[in-house]
């Protein structure tokens, strides 16, 4: 079974700071990788996803993530955060076959101070 580890439970940044949230997964086969975001009071929304091809994927709102297969990692980055990026961020993985499900990490709560 696959599992996901997110390195930081809480991150506090000032506006304009750069962001990197760590995510590692464990699964021996081919995977699909996702970052979901949950803004206060809202539902989980897809931020970006990786299936194959270019390991650097770009998502909404200036976010990007890089898949490094050798490190089983899929870290999320943003060069300059805004107050509106305050949210909880979840990394998730699914098998790239059949009736797969999303396995989530525990999440990282990002607080951006103005």
């Amino acid at each position: 079974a696959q599992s996901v580890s997110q390195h930081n439970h809480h991150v506090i940044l000032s506006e304009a700071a750069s962001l990197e949230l760590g995510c590692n997964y464990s699964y021996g086969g081919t995977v699909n990788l996702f970052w979901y975001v949950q803004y206060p009071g809202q539902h989980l929304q897809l931020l970006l996803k990786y299936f194959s091809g270019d390991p650097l994927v770009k998502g909404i709102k200036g976010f990007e993530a890089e898949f490094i297969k050798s490190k089983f990692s899929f870290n999320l980055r943003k060069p300059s955060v805004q107050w509106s990026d305050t949210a909880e961020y979840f990394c998730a993985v699914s098998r790239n076959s059949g009736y797969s499900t999303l396995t989530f990490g525990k999440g990282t709560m990002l607080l951006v101070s103005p």
Partner: protein
Amino acid sequence: EAGVAQSPRYKIIEKRQSVAFWCNPISGHATLYWYQQILGQGPKLLIQFQNNGVVDDSQLPKDRFSAERLKGVDSTLKIQPAKLEDSAVYLCASSPALTAGLTEAFFGQGTRLTVV
């Protein structure tokens, strides 16, 4: 496009009572998931349906939890009897039919259950 609808949004019950949650997935989505999200943790899969058949319910506490998806559309999740540790947000998600893995799951707002 209408999203995944869930009701109720909030529910408070006493332990040993029963409760039911309802989910209406995005039209045409064959796959439906119920997740449990305890405060401070990521969502944990309880059960996955493909149309009206169960694909994975390995983490569903079957002594107290049950779920059904009639006619392959709406779904209900029931807890009977509830325990204090069932306090959580229950998320419903749907995705198009799976052929070669999951492409994207769309989530509802969730139902926040408090058991007192």
